[in-house]
């Protein structure tokens, strides 16, 4: 009986000791705790301010819109006619 109690006690101490030795992952760049953000090509609720010339929800259309906007808005060496 005493031997069993001793064994149980030892097992408990070992279990607690191993728990204490464990640690949570501390590596950098863990999963972000931020809420999920909607992609910009899905558009916003303020439709009055949405630029025309692209289709809301179409990622490719949105990317092309930004590329075209960057060209006619920022590239003054290569004048591009505003679509």
């Amino acid at each position: 009986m005493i031997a069993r109690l001793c064994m149980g006690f030892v097992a408990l101490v070992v279990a607690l000791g191993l728990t204490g030795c464990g640690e949570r992952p501390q590596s950098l760049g863990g999963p972000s705790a931020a809420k999920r953000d909607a992609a910009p090509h899905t558009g916003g609720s303020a439709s009055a301010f949405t630029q025309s010339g692209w289709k809301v929800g179409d990622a490719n259309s949105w990317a092309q819109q930004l590329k075209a906007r960057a060209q006619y808005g920022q590239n003054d060496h290569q004048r591009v006619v505003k679509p």
Partner: protein
Amino acid sequence: MARMKFICDAERCIECNGCVTACKNEHEVPWGVNRRRVVTLNDGLPGEKSISVACMHCSDAPCMAVCPVNCFYRTDEGVVLHDKDVCIGCGYCSYACPFGAPQFPGQGAFGVRGKMDKCTFCAGGPEANGSEAEFEKYGRNRLAEGKLPACAEMCSTKALLAGDGDVVADILRNRVVQRGKGAEVWGWGTAYGSRQAGQPVATPAAVPAKEGSTS
């Protein structure tokens, strides 16, 4: 997929602070917080250079690495954003950032830092696109409206370029070829690790041996 980048052309920036004003107006940024600012080197001397600085949305962002609550995230477009509902205002990101981008509102008793605020590349934050909550916390979401950041679009000399990295790099490259000088894009190598911008690749072989080492 577009990868959003900023480039400031030091040959063109005239320190007008139009980008700073445009940013503050567009997002109604509170007093004391400057998401963007213009830095001038050798101010008042012949050959002075100015650059407009904000968050560079780094490829390997140190702010993300040091944040103890992981409030940062990177969008598919390469924009580094954060969740103000998770931020605890500790300021670690401020110390880690090589560009001084993270800002802290000074309002509140005893100089409480408050939630961190920084440039969002006009991409808002983790609230519904274009919603009132997003505007209150992060400002306008121009990307969701099919527009580019207000600072770059307002730049009178087009010194500040923003948009898809391939597009803005092509625009700057064309300029440099045309004028025959001024290829330095300060901050580009630090933010994106480009060897072309003079940033060495961090490989073990490239790290010099410490003094006194036997190897």
